[in-house]
């Protein structure tokens, strides 16, 4: 995976509900149609002409971020977080507000004023404001309005040896994988690649897309948590960056099709790709929505392990992204050549 390809996707704006910019970038490359909620649906008919297995691959375009809810008298912007952002990363943060990417600051009073005897509490989102430099509501209204979205201001780049640091790796990494997968052909498969919206606020895009497509096989491409850290117990780490594609067995939204997981493992081993199982039952992704569409869809997820998920600077391995793409492509190819359909 080229760093620049992934970096361009990560740097694009696309907070849940405001996915236009990232969608346009992806659409330029992949084409497709946009549905009512804003999902980008790219359909590829079976190059072999059929009979075909109808496969839906999904990666979500949206990212966690901020929504301006009020312009304060003092010219600052009150905001809500969109999606699950740990409030501990907020103080001291630069964000970009609105389509023009106006810089804004989420700050706290200096440590000099703290009572040294008490350990300071985590700042509550309700107590924080975005400082855009305006000194009155009237001034702020010239540039900003309620409903503006803001993103982390992070600029993606290389980290250490072969890692990438960026905002929104969840799930632009999956988007990058899906774009890569679309470059190949899969005889025996009617392929529906869906770049979904509103995953971070309840798997809402995938739900309507799956309903429209009625897939026989669902596969979700995600960025998932790698809780690695100094002094952290192995059992708490969930996944490891650089250790290959992550296969989920279960999370809070779905239980993966065991047959699919078995085939994914076989495909990975045949292709000589390392893989790991996600060691946590928490979290959730579009698989929850796809698996419950219509009469139910056998669904699994392949994920890119990412550190500091939902933070301003998440970290993933470019090689992991490649491996997820290779595993996905190999899996879809096998589904097509063998006409595989799965049960739970």
């Amino acid at each position: 995976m080229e760093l620049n390809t992934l970096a361009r996707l990560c740097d694009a704006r696309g907070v849940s509900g405001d996915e236009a910019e990232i969608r346009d970038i992806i659409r330029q490359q992949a084409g497709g149609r946009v549905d009512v909620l804003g999902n980008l649906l790219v359909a590829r008919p079976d190059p072999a002409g059929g009979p075909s297995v109808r496969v839906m691959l999904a990666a979500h375009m949206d990212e966690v971020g901020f929504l301006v809810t009020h312009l304060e008298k003092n010219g600052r912007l009150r905001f809500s977080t969109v999606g699950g952002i740990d409030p501990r990363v907020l103080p001291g943060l630069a964000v970009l507000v609105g389509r023009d990417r106006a810089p804004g600051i989420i700050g706290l009073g200096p440590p000099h004023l703290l009572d040294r005897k008490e350990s300071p509490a985590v700042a509550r989102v309700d107590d924080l404001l975005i400082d855009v430099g305006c000194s009155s509501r009237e001034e702020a209204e010239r540039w900003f309005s309620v409903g503006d979205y803001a993103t982390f201001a992070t600029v993606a780049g290389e980290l250490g040896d072969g890692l990438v640091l960026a905002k929104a790796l969840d799930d632009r990494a999956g988007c990058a994988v899906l774009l890569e997968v679309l470059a190949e052909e899969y005889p025996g498969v009617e392929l529906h690649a869906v770049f979904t919206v509103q995953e971070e606020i309840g798997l809402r895009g995938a739900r309507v897309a799956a309903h429209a497509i009625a897939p026989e096989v669902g596969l979700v491409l995600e960025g998932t948590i790698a809780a690695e850290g100094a002094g952290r117990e192995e059992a708490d780490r969930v996944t490891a960056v650089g250790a290959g594609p992550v296969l989920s067995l279960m999370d809070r939204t779905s239980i993966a099709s065991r047959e699919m997981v078995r085939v994914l493992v076989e495909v990975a081993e045949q292709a000589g790709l390392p893989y790991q199982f996600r060691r946590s039952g928490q979290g959730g992704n579009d698989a929850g929505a796809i698996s419950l569409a219509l009469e139910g869809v056998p669904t699994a997820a392949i994920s890119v392990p990412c550190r500091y998920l939902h933070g301003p600077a998440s970290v993933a391995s470019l090689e992991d992204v490649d491996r997820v793409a290779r595993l996905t492509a190999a899996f879809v190819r096998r589904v097509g050549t063998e006409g595989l359909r799965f049960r739970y």
Partner: protein
Amino acid sequence: MTVREFLEWLSLAPGVSGFEGPVAARIEGAWAGLAGEVRRDRLGNVIALKRGDRPGSPKLMLAAHMDEIGLMVTRVEPDGFLRFAGVPEVDLRTLPGKEVVVHGRRDLRGVVGHPPPHILSPEDTKKLPKLEDLFIDVGLAAVRARELVAVGDPITFRAEVRELKGGLVAGKGFDDRAGVAVLHQCLEELAGLHHAVDVYAVATVQEEVGLRGAVVGTYGIQPDLAIAVDVHLGDTPGVPEHKSFTLDKGPVITMGANIHPVLHRDLVAVARDLNIPFQLEAAPAGTGTDAVAMQVSRSGIPTALVSIPCRYMHSPVETVALADVARAGRLLAHFAARRTPGYLEELAWS
């Protein structure tokens, strides 16, 4: 360079207390063209001397510190993550998730990792992480990390300078590079003014860890008058109004025991005369700035303090108004230009 460009240029240079080399080199270069003599003293203070046109006139020392807060590597863990300490201390409220640069054998981009909510107990999610729960991820395996990073390497925030609306800028190290920019502005203004006094513009080291550069710099220069230029609490939610100063309403001129009353009076007089807006601060005891050290150097130095209001101090997004920097520079230049050769007599206590 405009004030904004100069401030950005300084901000992007690393200069953790004790490791001011890179930022000092930039300041030295910039001041070489503005002052007749520029030197670095033994602790690393950059001292520019712009001589007055009346030999025997008083020596005026202007000081702003160029060091910034930062971190230091204390250990490379077996999995390649770095442990660190604060220089001088860590504000745990602003560190998690932030980007840093580790100044090892080469500069390494990094991010401050902290325990994600899902591995914490419910009550721990409401608390700030402790220093021992934080680490820096530079994306290197231990073997490579040990090649490139050693215990004692300094770490700075990685932050772009960003322009907000209303003439504000945000970035790292504005405490007290904004003050250095004031001195720069002052030297530029002085180029067009006659001044009797010798003006020493001093970018001091190690202020954040104990005003150490000012202690030795003042001893070496032996000024007759001294003015510290630092940043001061800007208007920020959570900071009481009576303890903070509004951005873009002009520099803060302090009075109190740390300040010689005549210097204070005359700074205010110059500001009024030039229609430079300013804000007043009353500080009962120490000001926590280089002024504390300068005042008690040798047998005592008449000292004053001019400050730039700054929001979010000691974070990667310190925010100041560019106009305040320009105003303070102009104020100091004209203050210097208006001092007479006999000014010290006015300072004598009756």
